[in-house]
Every structure is written in structure tokens, then in C-alpha cells.
């Protein structure tokens, strides 16, 4: 789709197309994407992931609904459901100081807020896939919390997809001192009759998060896309003084998954904890990318990503911690551990440090291999059969990062999904 076709035929049919600032934002994004196209493997950040397969599916329309909508994962959640790109949940009662609505609705109800914040994340603006998302996106969710508001009920967003190309664009604005927990659930409807696997869908989502001073945001992503689907999700978070961001990415589904988390620690005492688990089998491919940018001094970051790779699967971890010259007194730690369960699985890990300040404490560690033999032997010597010993050790291995999830209900849900994967 050339910029001309985009501007003439596609853009005018998008929600909010009458807003001139939005038309301009989209048009520029389309031009940016057109200039480079999809990144190929010669681009350093994409050296391990091949996007050629999705090239021809980027502009397919989402037709029909997403199938049967499953019940909510969390008790008492505030829920929005997008079924094959359409917002299907109605209005619900919200606590004071909280606005939760679809992006398309917000274009009518609160365009000024969008104008101030949409597409402002420096970290991802120039990148090709977020640019494509900005140009193509029809909907997504927007959550706004006024200063001081603690939202007790978790926010649960379900993106249920069946076909076509989906571009959710999400925005979270947390006022000073506010607190919230968000679960983004990406689910694929697999068993549509008559559909062949190669027709499966492409999802390219972008979530922008702006946390003002002292805000706390917990975001959890559960990715269970359809077996032949492609999932690309980019999160761009900016944290002001004392703000805290806890993120956990659980990647289970899809044929190709790319989870990018960019965090800019812009204010002193800001802190970010990024953890994740990737469980892959068959020919799945999952690429986890992190960029932790210590812009301000006295900031703190922690990362703990773990994976189990079976069959012919391919896992990738590219984590970068960068520290700017004036960011003194910071601490940044990163850990990536992967267990290879089969002879044909593969892990590529690149934990990178780019440090320009000197008063720092940074470390990273990465291991890739199989379960420790001593542990197995110990359990077996106590009478536990080998298969069960392996299970116990793998569960313990994953638990070390799962236990960092501070929300108990979410933890229980994730534990259940992990156990289910291990059981099959």
C-alpha cells in the first residue's frame, strides 16, 4: 500500500479521520513505514527474526467476529473485549477518577487528551512496526487515571482474533500517585471451520504508557494467539519521578511472536521490573526485546526472563540496558535463562549493556542449556521418577520469575496456564 493509496482510500475510513491532527499523525506514520518497509534480517534488531511471511497479510480486512468469548480471567475486573477488531462490550460503571474506553470512542469523547498523548513516545515513534500500527489502527483501549486514584479492580482487555490484520493501539495515562493493574489478553480462535492455517491472522499492537510522578502501573500480557498467527506487540513506557512499572510477558502461542518492551526511566527514583516467560514447542518462534533506558539518575531496573524450548522451536532474547552520561547512581540488573528440552530447539540471547555514566551498578547474566543433572539425580535418589523430577525442576525454574508477579490473582492465572502447558 503506497502512501497515496493509503491517504486516498484507507485513512478516510478510519475512526477519527475528521480530526486533522490525527490525519496528519497517521499520514506521517504511513510515509515512515513506506520508506523502509518491513525490517529484514540485515537490520541488527531483527537479525534473528524473519518477517517475510507476514508481508502479504498486512492489509487483510478482519471479517466476521472472533468466535465465542471466554469468561473473564480475573474476578471483579473491568473488562473490554475486542472481537476480531470490534469493541463488543458495552458501557460499564466506572469508579470516580477513572476513564476506560475504546480508542474509537475516545476520538469522539476525548479527542483533546488523545491529541496531547497519542504517538508521543520517542522510543518507538520512528520504528517501522509501531509506525504501521499508527497508520492502520482502528481501535484499542484507553485508560486514564486522575491523580491519586487507586483503581482496586483490575482492568482486563481481551483481544480475540480470528482472521485478517489487527492493529490495536492502546494508551494508558496514569496521573501522579495513581495505581492500576492491567491484563492484556491476546487470544486466537483456532477452530474456525474451513480455515487453513496459513490464512491465520497478523496482530501488530502498540501500548503507550505514561506514568506521572509516583504512579504505579502493573501490566501483564498473556499471549495465546492461534497456532498459525503472528503476534507483534510493542510497549513504550515513560516513567516520571518515583513512578514504578511492573511488566510481565507470558508468551505461549502463535507461530511467530515478537514482544518488545521499551522503558524510559525519566525521573529520579523511577523503577521498572520487567519479567517474562516464553514456552515454545513445534516450530514456534518468539523474540523478546527489551530496551531499558536509564535517562535519569537514581533509577533502578530489574529483568528476569526465562524460557522452555521444545521440539523445533526458536527463542530469542535481546535485552539492552543503556545508561546515559548524567544518569548517576543507578542500578540495572538483567537475567535471562533458557532450558532447551529437545535436540532441535535453539536459543539466541544477546544481553547488552551500553554505559556512559560511571556511578552505576549493572550486571547481566545469561544461561542456555539443559536442566542441572545434580538436581535431577537428587530427586531421583529420593524415589521420584525421572519425568516427574524434570517437571518439578522446570516448574521451580519458572517459579523464580513468576513469584515476582505482585498481583496474587494474576499470578494464579499465569501459574495455571504454565502448568497446563507443562502437562501437555
Amino acid at each position, binding site marked *: 500500500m503506497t502512501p497515496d493509496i493509503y491517504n486516498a482510500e484507507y485513512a478516510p475510513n478510519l475512526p477519527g479521520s475528521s480530526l486533522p491532527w490525527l490525519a496528519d499523525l497517521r499520514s506521517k506514520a504511513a510515509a515512515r513505514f513506506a520508506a523502509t518497509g518491513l525490517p529484514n534480517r540485515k537490520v541488527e534488531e531483527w537479525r534473528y527474526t524473519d518477517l517475510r511471511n507476514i508481508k502479504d497479510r498486512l492489509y487483510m480486512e478482519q471479517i466476521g467476529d472472533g468466535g465465542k468469548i471466554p469468561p473473564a480471567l480475573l474476578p471483579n475486573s473491568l473488562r473490554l473485549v475486542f472481537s476480531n477488531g470490534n469493541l463488543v462490550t458495552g458501557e460499564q460503571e466506572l469508579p470516580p477518577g477513572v476513564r476506560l474506553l475504546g480508542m474509537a470512542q475516545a476520538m469522539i469523547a476525548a479527542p483533546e487528551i488523545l491529541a496531547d498523548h497519542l504517538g508521543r513516545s520517542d522510543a518507538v515513534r520512528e520504528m517501522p512496526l509501531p509506525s504501521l500500527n499508527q497508520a492502520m489502527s482502528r481501535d484499542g483501549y484507553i485508560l486514564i487515571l486522575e491523580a491519586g486514584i487507586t483503581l482496586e479492580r483490575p482492568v482486563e482487555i481481551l483481544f480475540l482474533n480470528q482472521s485478517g490484520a489487527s492493529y490495536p493501539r492502546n494508551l494508558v495515562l496514569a496521573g501522579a500517585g495513581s495505581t492500576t493493574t492491567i491484563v492484556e489478553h491476546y487470544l486466537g480462535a483456532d477452530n474456525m471451520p474451513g480455515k487453513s492455517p496459513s490464512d491465520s491472522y497478523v496482530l501488530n499492537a502498540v501500548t503507550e504508557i505514561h506514568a506521572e510522578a509516583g504512579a504505579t502501573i502493573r501490566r501483564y500480557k498473556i499471549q495465546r494467539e492461534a497456532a498459525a498467527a503472528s503476534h507483534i506487540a510493542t510497549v513504550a513506557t515513560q516513567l516520571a519521578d518515583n513512578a514504578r512499572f511492573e511488566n510481565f510477558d507470558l508468551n505461549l502461542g502463535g507461530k511467530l511472536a515478537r514482544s518488545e518492551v521499551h522503558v524510559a526511566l525519566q525521573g529520579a527514583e523511577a523503577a521498572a521490573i520487567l519479567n517474562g516467560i516464553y514456552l515454545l514447542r513445534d516450530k514456534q518462534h518468539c523474540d523478546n526485546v527489551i530496551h531499558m533506558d536509564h535517562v535519569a539518575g537514581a533509577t533502578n531496573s530489574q529483568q528476569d526472563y526465562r524460557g522452555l524450548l521444545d521440539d523445533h522451536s526458536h527463542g530469542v532474547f535481546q535485552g539492552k540496558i543503556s545508561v546515559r552520561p548524567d544518569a548517576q547512581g543507578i542500578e540495572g540488573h538483567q537475567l535471562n535463562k533458557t532450558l532447551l528440552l529437545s*535436540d532441535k530447539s535453539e536459543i539466541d540471547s*544477546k544481553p547488552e549493556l*551500553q554505559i556512559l*555514566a560511571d556511578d552505576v551498578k*549493572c*550486571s547481566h547474566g545469561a544461561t*542456555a*542449556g539443559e536442566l542441572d543433572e545434580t538436581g535431577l539425580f537428587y530427586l531421583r535418589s529420593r524415589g521420584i521418577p525421572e519425568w516427574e523430577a524434570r517437571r518439578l525442576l522446570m516448574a521451580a525454574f519458572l517459579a523464580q520469575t513468576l513469584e515476582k508477579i505482585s498481583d496474587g490473582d494474576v499470578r494464579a492465572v499465569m501459574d495455571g496456564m504454565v502448568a497446563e502447558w507443562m502437562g501437555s
Partner: protein
Amino acid sequence: MSYSADTADQVSAISGDKYKYGFVTDIESELAPKGLNEDIVRFISAKKDEPDWLLKWRLRAYERWLTMEEPTWGKVAYPEIDFQDAHYYAAPKSKDDGPKSLDEVDPELLRTYEKLGIPLHEQQMLAGVAVDAVFDSVSVATTFRKELAKAGVIFCPISEAVKEHPELVQKYLGSVVPYSDNFYATLNSAVFTDGSFVYIPKGVRCPMELSTYFRINEANTGQFERTLIIADEGSYVSYLEGCTAPQRDENQLHAAVVELVLLDDAEIKYSTVQNWYPGDEHGNGGIYNFVTKRAACRGRNSKVSWTQVETGSAITWKYPSCILQGDNSVGEFYSVAITNNMQQADTGTKMIHIGKNTSSTIIAKGISAGRSQSTYRGLVRMQPGAAGSRNYTQCDSLLIGDKCGAHTVPYIENRNRTAQIEHEATTAKISEDQLFYCRQRGLTDEEALGMIVNGFCKKVLQELPMEFAVEAQKLVAISLEGSVG
């Protein structure tokens, strides 16, 4: 054929007769005209009286070089190099032109030698003093050669090896680093002028440490050095390269290639101490050191150990690597890279595990001070056949002052589930507490820094052969002069 404008002028100056070798440059000249073209490659080959097969190899490399582009992925920035603006051949200077004694040598240079604890006769050699006038180093060389000959070890300049042992050179040259490998290696293949050739026969443990010091017959050929070391089955050699003394060179670009071949049960220990002129505090005039070093552990149970202390050069770009092909082979990489003022270093290693039960150890210590940038770039790859293989990597960076940078870019690729990779890295600054503690016990700022940094680098320095280790410790302290306070 393409000529640079310079060459064309020279040609017309010499009355333009085509010489019998098929090129124009006067074979008698001691200095090739500036520029790089096929003519110059032929000139170099003729000057060295090389056999046809080697000339052909050089020409193939040159042709290939013309199609290649300089790599830009390293975290180093430098003004564009004009490859036509250099002489690619200069005959070794006669010692008669040098200083007659140390009294004629720059006292600043002598002070550095003192600080490094370099023995007097070595100082003379380094300063280019005509040694036979003062000290009979010729007899030292003779004794040395006798011992090696007894053991059957061949250690000679590569130009000599081409004539005396052509079958060995032909078999192994370019087999570890093919002429097309990368931009600088290809350049080197076309225009290399000299280097070491070493062959250790089956079962022989080389009786002494081989060092570039002992090649007295040469000077100033460091620009495009080519080294080839072959360790036959069951043999052992320890090779030392470089020296702690600061070395200057009119030639700014250094692109060396080192190839190591190890057969079954062989072992090579290769140590480098490099202190090429780093440029002044503004970064001007330093040497660019772009080196390709690779060891092919072809044999079962073979073992190679790279130990390097890099403190010089304006820009260092090198990744001594190991191809661990033979089952049970072992690769080790111990490195200390120190950058100060405006130096830039992008260095590291590649360990490619192909065979079963292979193992590699990487201990890299980077120290940045001043406004320098130091990057560790490493690749550890376990190929699908590398069952039971192991890697352990520890890279630590120390920052001195807040204007420098330390970066770590490791690539960890595992395609075999019984292979294990473990990588750890830390970055921190020199601790005020540690400095204060040492100073309260009477050490000066600089003494304290030197001691703490040496402690930081200890695991690497203890891998160096003894005499190098002592000098290296002093070199570490000297390189950081002026970085505290």
C-alpha cells in the same frame, strides 16, 4: 590497471619504461610509491622473490578487496581512511641510521622503559640502537636458533618460510582466515609484507617461549603482519607477541592476520601485549589496530589459549577467535583492554563450538578512563553437533571517571540442548571506599588505583608468561596515569 595520480607522476618521472616483471615501479626502489593497485601488489611479491602461486593468491585477494566495503558495525568512529594515501612497501631500515646509544634517545621514552622495568639491552633494541655496537645480541640469537633446530622447530620470517617450506605454507596459509574473510583480512592478504612462521613437529614441546623480540633481522614491518603457526600432533608452543614499550609507527593503519592450526592433542598458548601509540590527549595521530586472529582446533583434544593485554592504539578492533572443531577441544580467551583519553576499543572473541564435548572460557576485563569508549563484543555459538559442550564467560567493566563509556554486546546462540552456556557481566566504577582504604594505608592515589586495577585484572594477568606478566602489571598502572584526581 588503475593508477593513482601519484603513481602516474612517478611513472613519467622514471621515463615510463615497462619493467620486465610486468609492472612499472622500479624494482630497486626502497619505497613503493603511494597507492594501492595491482602494480603495487606485484611489486611487493617481486621484492620478496615469491613463487607464482603466492602472487596469484595475493592478486585474487586484491581483486576481492576492490569489491568489499569497510565494516561499520563496530562502536568505533574514525575519519575516513584514504587507502591510496599510504606506502604499501618500505624496505627495512638499516640499523646504521639509528641512534648510536641510548643517550640519543628521547628521554621521555627512556623514562617509560624504566617504569616498565625493561632490561637495558632490550631498551636498546627497542630504541633501534645498533645493538652489535654495544651488546652482542647476535650470539644470543645464534644459541636460540641452535636449540630450536635441535628440536626440529621451525621459527622464521614468513617470507623465508615461503621459500624454505613452501608445502607447509601452501597447505595452511588462508585455511583458517580465508582471503575473503573480511575487509581488513583481505587487504592484508594482498599486501602483507612479513610476519612469523612457526611449525612445531609431532610430539615436540617447544623448548622455549617464542617471541617476536628474537627476530632481530627486521624492524618496522608491523603494518600488515601475517603470522602462521602450525602445531602438529601432540606438540606445544608458547608464543609472545608485541611488547609493553610504546611503539610508534609512521603508518597509521595496522591490519594484521594471525592464523593458528592445531592438530590432535596439540596446544598453543598465544600471548599479546599491545601498546601501540594511542594518540595524544585529543586523540590525534594514534594507530588504528584492526586485527583478525583465529585458531582452528582441528584435532581432537587440541587446546588454544589467547591472552591479551591491550592498552595502546587509538582504535582497537580485534576478536581473537576459536573454531572448536575437534572433539574435546578447548578454547580460552583472557583479555584486559584499557582505554584512556580518547581511545576506542571494540574487542572480544568468537567461540564456535562444532565438535562434541568442546569447552571454552572467556574472561574479559575492560577498563575505561578519560573520554574513552570500550566495548566487549563476543559470540558463543553451539552448533547442533556440539553435544556436551560448555562455555563460561565473565566480562567485567570498570569505569574511571564519568566521561567514558563501557559497553557489552554478547551474542549467545545455542543449538544443542546438552550444551551449556553461562554468561555473566558486571559494570561498575572504581570504588571510592577502596581508594580511600588504600590511601589511608599510605599509598598515593595512583598507587592505589594501580593496585586495585591490577587486582581487578588478576585472573587475566596470571595467564601471561612470567616476564610478560610483570611488565604487564606495570603497563596497566602506567596506562591509567592521569585518570584519577
